[in-house]
């Protein structure tokens, strides 16, 4: 056997090739089935969004009468015009952007600083600080204590109620800490000898090296902030200050039609047309759909880093 192996091996330069040669009929059937099956699965990931898009660009008065399968019918951008002229939608869009940008910046800054300190072996009581951080991953106060805290801090209806409570994520900090620990100490030591202080070392040496992990965690935070809604629903009570996700929820799920001005003032529409709902959903989701192909690889990297730690 041993000799056989040795003599056969050199004749198989590429794994790909020899695999194809040795396929049996059963395997061929399996492969074909597999390719088609996975293709169909992926179709189910795209189709709902396509359907949404097709509905959003249909004429609302005619759309209800016919069934949309794939192709948009009765093309009209009226729904978008309606939706975008609603002040709640564009204010929501603005608040969502503010929340995403500010929230990501604050979370990255605080998390990175924490992670940096925890990554240093010479940090006094390092285990203790790590423990009090990791503990929050498994144990939390829950909905009501959080709500009461925000109320007592006077942060109701303030954008900070959406930004500060989630800015310290144990998971993200652990990932960043692990990344920072992989950077050799020698870089820092020479800087210390040159008399640089900790903040200088952090920003001059470590930040440039940490760009990959900062991009990954930053994008996680950003997508999380864009999609977050529950905190906004309970902390923000003024409709003008509400983020887009909650406005979307009001329109699509609660069927509220006061938020979008429907076809002028005269026509009283009792039910929000599907096309309007689809258009609001598109406006909310489009930023994600547009950036997702470009950012997904950073996301994947982060998952890998996270899983390596385990």
């Amino acid at each position: 056997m041993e000799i056989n192996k040795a003599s056969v091996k050199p004749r198989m330069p590429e794994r790909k090739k020899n695999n194809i040669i040795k396929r049996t009929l059963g395997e061929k059937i399996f492969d074909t089935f597999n390719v088609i099956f996975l293709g169909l699965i992926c179709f189910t990931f795209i189709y709902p969004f396509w359907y949404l898009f097709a509905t959003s660009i249909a004429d609302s008065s005619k759309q209800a009468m016919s069934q949309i399968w794939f192709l948009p019918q009765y093309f009209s951008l009226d729904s978008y015009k309606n939706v975008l002229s609603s002040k709640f939608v564009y204010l929501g869009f603005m608040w969502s952007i503010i929340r995403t940008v500010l929230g990501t910046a604050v979370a990255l800054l605080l998390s990175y600083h924490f992670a940096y300190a925890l990554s240093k072996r010479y940090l006094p009581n390092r285990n203790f600080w790590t423990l009090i951080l990791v503990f929050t991953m498994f144990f939390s106060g829950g909905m009501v204590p959080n709500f009461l805290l925000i109320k007592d801090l006077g942060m109701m209806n303030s954008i900070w109620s959406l930004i500060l409570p989630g800015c310290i994520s144990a998971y993200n900090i652990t990932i960043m800490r692990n990344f920072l620990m992989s950077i050799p100490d020698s870089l820092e030591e020479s800087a210390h000898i040159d008399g640089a202080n900790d903040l200088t070392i952090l920003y001059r040496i470590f930040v440039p090296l940490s760009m990959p992990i900062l991009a990954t965690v930053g994008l996680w935070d950003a997508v999380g902030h864009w999609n977050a809604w529950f905190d906004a629903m309970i902390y923000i009570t003024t409709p003008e200050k509400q983020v887009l996700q909650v406005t979307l929820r009001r329109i699509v799920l609660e069927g509220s039609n006061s938020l979008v001005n429907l076809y002028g003032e005269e026509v009283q529409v009792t039910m929000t047309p599907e096309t309007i709902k689809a258009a609001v959903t598109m406006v909310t989701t489009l930023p994600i759909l547009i950036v997702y192909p470009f950012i997904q690889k950073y996301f994947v990297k982060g998952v890998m880093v996270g899983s390596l730690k385990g």
Partner: protein
Amino acid sequence: MKSKEAQPAIGKKKSGFQYTLKQYWKYRGLFMIMIPSVIMLIIFKYVPIYGIQIAFKNFRLKAGIWGSPWVGLDVFRKVFGMPIFWQAFQNTLILGVMNLVIGFPMPVILALLLNEIRHERYKKTLQTISYLPHFVSWITLSGLFITLLSPSTGPVAALYRLVGAQPYYFMGEVSTFRWVLVVTNVWKSIGWGSIVYLAALSGVDQEMYEAALIDGASRFQRIWYITLPSIAPTVTIMLILRAGSIVSDNFDQVFNMSNAAVYKVANVLGVYTYEIGLKNMKYSESTAISLFLNVISFAMVMLTNTVSKKVNDYGIW
């Protein structure tokens, strides 16, 4: 050898309070860097944990957390005495088990199937597409599924009519609502969940496959005897991480997808905590339920970790 034995003695001396203080002074630059984050951690994570005490108090808004009188376990007794709480608990458990039993193996299967595709670009494209739902909020997806499954206008209903069947209102029927939750949850998380396993699969030593090929192992034998055992540690770790989720129902999903008609099965503890807590202002009761859930999920993680360590020799700590 001698110097190594001497070390603990020095360590003991060093662990004194004064020494620690000196260390903090010595590394104050580093410590200052993390102080703002620690303050945030204390305010926004530990103050709410401290606030859990209202589960043991008769909380009144005017009196505040401090001024409200202690009532021991009265709140728990009251909560556990309510049939609707047990209904919610049961719903949460059923949903949790369904999500775990059906939802957990799916990404593994997807990863295995994707791994069998030889055309690299096709595989890459499929993977990228499968991540898509992960990036979209449950509000969007709920709206989407409500439209798709709508018995009057949705394409699924149209498909039913096309084959001459009566359209079924999946989201409005108690018997099917749970399945809608489970299937849509799988749909959202399967692609993303498979990343970890695909990473593990790419790390499998290719020479093992070559050796097996020469020994005449069939494709399925190779998967069974090489691929699966190779990713078993990853699967175990993911299972541990998922264990606590049996009691943490997917609030975002259930809350947004449910409607009054399916309240009987959609009333899970997450939704119930929200309703009695923030809608009905029964703060103590709501916190008691949160605490109850948190303790169970914490215990679940601990338990699975211990079992896994005993059986498989790998845990997360």
